[in-house]
């Protein structure tokens, strides 16, 4: 079970390295030692380790410095701290750097094994940060999103405005974008999702290039929007809330657009189309289709 797992033990006391090698090596781990921070960095530059067990107090390059370097350069490596007399400040700093656990010195073989096992288990369960597919979300889009998140971070009540801006930028709010926003704003993903699912303005499904919003307000109802909807469905071959195969149109219903004077009414993108009749539908949609399609 411990095959191919590489562990680096960093301590200025050789006895620690020796006993760690003996205890963990017996379990089949591939253990190496470094006598200080500098040596550890040089070794890690050459080779990847899964887990680093490090002392905090070491001459020259200390444990905290080493951990900062690991976080920056080898973020996927797990860190466990071995320490004799942890002060509150150093432990706090270590925790902020994302250590998995710590082993008090002196340690018994059982404690070291246990902590190592648990640290490795924890790392297995740790979901690697989801890669955002570049084809769908180009980096420029994501950096724009991150900029918005940064702008609103630390402002109270900023989740909804950020989600609105995010939807403008990305077009919709898939789980991966929700997660990124949650992380960026330092709120839970559940909180973000609860808002996205509550407000009808937010869409978790991709939307078409043109968004057809049909008003289902009272005035539109009285004036026969239903026939228009039937025609739209037939024309676009989609249901309410759907998107056409060519991703050109998606259709949504809106409670009231507040343009009752024009009932029945729909909005495509920013254009309001009023006093609709089923027979006008095809012509209106054609305005949003590429010219070439009309001529063929």
């Amino acid at each position, binding site marked *: 079970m411990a095959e191919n797992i590489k562990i680096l033990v960093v301590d200025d006391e050789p006895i620690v390295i020796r006993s760690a090698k003996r205890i963990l090596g017996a379990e089949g781990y591939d253990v190496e030692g470094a006598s200080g921070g500098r040596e550890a960095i040089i070794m890690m530059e050459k080779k990847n380790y899964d887990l680093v067990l490090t002392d905090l107090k070491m001459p020259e390059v200390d444990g905290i410095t080493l951990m900062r370097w690991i976080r920056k350069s080898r973020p996927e490596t797990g860190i466990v701290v071995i320490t004799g007399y942890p002060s509150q400040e150093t432990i706090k700093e270590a925790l902020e750097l994302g250590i998995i656990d710590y082993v008090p010195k002196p340690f018994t073989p059982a404690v070291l094994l246990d902590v190592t096992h648990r640290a490795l288990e924890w790392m297995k369960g740790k979901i690697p940060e989801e890669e955002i597919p570049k084809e769908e979300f180009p980096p420029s889009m994501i950096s724009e999103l991150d900029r918005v998140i940064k702008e609103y971070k630390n402002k109270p009540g900023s989740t909804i405005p950020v989600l609105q801006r995010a939807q403008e930028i990305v077009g919709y709010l898939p789980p991966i974008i929700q997660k990124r926003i949650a992380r960026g704003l330092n709120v839970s993903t559940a909180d973000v999702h609860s808002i996205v699912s509550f407000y009808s303005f937010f869409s978790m499904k991709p939307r078409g290039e043109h968004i057809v919003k049909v008003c289902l307000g009272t005035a539109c109802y009285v004036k*026969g929007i239903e026939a228009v909807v039937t025609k739209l469905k037939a024309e676009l071959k989609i249901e309410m809330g759907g998107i056409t195969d060519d991703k050109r149109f998606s259709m949504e219903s809106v409670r009231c657009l*507040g343009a009752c004077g024009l009932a029945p009414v729909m909005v495509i993108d920013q254009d309001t189309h009023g006093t609709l009749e089923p027979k006008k539908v095809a012509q209106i949609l054609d305005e949003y289709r590429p010219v070439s399609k009309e001529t063929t």
Partner: protein
Amino acid sequence: MAEQQQYRANLMVCAGTSCVSSESFKIKEVIEEELKKRELEKEIGVVLTGCSGLCAAGPVLTIYPDGIFYQKLKPEDIPYLVEEHLLKGRPVKRLMYKIPEKRAAIPTMMDIPFYKHQVLRVLRNKGLIDPEKIEEYIARDGYQAAAKALTQMTPEEIVKIVTDSGLRGRGGAGFPTGRKWELALKIEADEKYVVCNGDEGDPGAFMDRSVMEADPHAVIEGMIICAKATQSHHAYIYVRAEYPLAVKRLQIAIDQCYEAGLLGKDILGTGFDFDLDIYQGAGAFVCGEATALMRSIEGKRGMPRPKLWRSAVKGLWDKPTVLNNVETFANIPQIILNGADWYRSLGTVKSTGTKVFALTGAIRNVGLVEVPMDMTLRTIIYDIGGGMKKKGRKFKAVQLGGPSGGCIPEEFLDIPVTYEAIEKTGAIVGSGGMVAMDDSSCMVGVAKYFLDFTADESCGKCVPCRIGTRVMLDLLTDITEGRGKEGDIGTLEDLSHDIIATSLCGLGQSAPNPVLTTIRYFRDEYVSHIRDKWCRVGVCRDLATFYIDEKICKGCGICLKACPSKAIIGEKKKPHKIIQELCVHCRTCYEVCRFNTIKVLPAAARMANEAELMELAGQIEAWAGIEMEEVE
């Protein structure tokens, strides 16, 4: 404004949402081109204004100083209009408003019945100023009230004027505005908030939208005065996401105010600080409810909380908060300038001043109207609204107050639109949506429509509202699709009372109103749906057989052409008939027929042969008459 005074005439082109969608921007462009061609651009000004109210006639244009009103303009009309009216001084009758029966053109805006009966206070600037220019608002006494409130009045004095004016919350509930402000003023707190509710969610309502689009500064001024009165220094305007134009114009107005020193630190040198932000909603109807709205501003799911304390005590971020509707705030500056007695001079003792209504539905003049609160429904619907749009159709009901309101039948048309009188009918004034329905509307269908809305928009917090409305909706669906049972009406009523009694917020407490009022006034329709499986106006497809009365049919062929399933046959000028087997019961023929020839029979009649059908038709007409009386 200084610039404009040099013009010999000003063209006010309406740029409300309705007119914009019928291309008023294009109209303005063509006008400017034409003026240039004739070298008139230095003599004549062109202004884009907010909604001027008569949305049905858009795009509209008013030419001042004469106030000549032109409607339904097309770009190709413009060269002629410019040539005739502006160059030769001959107004163009062809493009003026006409009363359909009389055909005589009415040249000036104030003579058009739609405008004549209105009293403009909240909408006083509509169609007169460019909402994107603060100078024009200031030229119409803008920000004088704010200056007066900030420099000459104590908070107590402001609260007293507002209390004395009798102004009540225009958002729906009608809570006295002055009392709300007084509560907030008296509470000591390190921070207080002013919030403007522009989350106009009622379907069929667009008053707040029009105010925000046509006169955004009036709302801001009202909020500044409220801030002074309650000693608050921060405010939000919560606007629906569906209103992008309103957001844009408010943002422009706010930016102008910051620049002019009307917002920000040390307003007008008085040492009073006040900041104002726009907060865009995200499409949840329940957020129009005060506590849900504040939750939403806090960045959470917009769910209401129990009202153990008033928002004026603990509102946004648990600080004292004054939350008023757009129209309420827009009323404030005029009250401060003209005094409480002036405001009370209109309306009744308990419902003072004016109210803006969004008049829509099966009515001729669709649009935005502002009337004194003691005006009767009849005046609004017939004199201002111009009566039913479709020839031969009669008025059946008017729906007031959206999903929280109810349907008022013809017998109550002579009541005034005061909070008290409307409440007695089972409806509410609400935010001011007024949807007129003619006798081709199915009231069970209308009730179902509103319940579908509330069932969908229920936030889900309270079981009675979440599940109760769903169960009621299922019952109504059954009734409209022919599965209605005896006793359903009673069940609907019982459920309604339970939901009203046990829901936390206004949404649930009022959701059953449309059902209760339609049962109360149109019980016979429910009975005929359930017992006879008959929707007498043919809206409920499964409960209707369409049949052409051969005695009346003139064979004009309109229905024959309109029928989507080609189920109508007949020769020209001879009575047509419907092949029942081909009919899909879409009701198109019923709607297009100009002679009222299409009759609706119960679903069972589909199986009858021709002779039986005729007989049934005769029988049922007689029977229907008796039954109506019995029920009443």
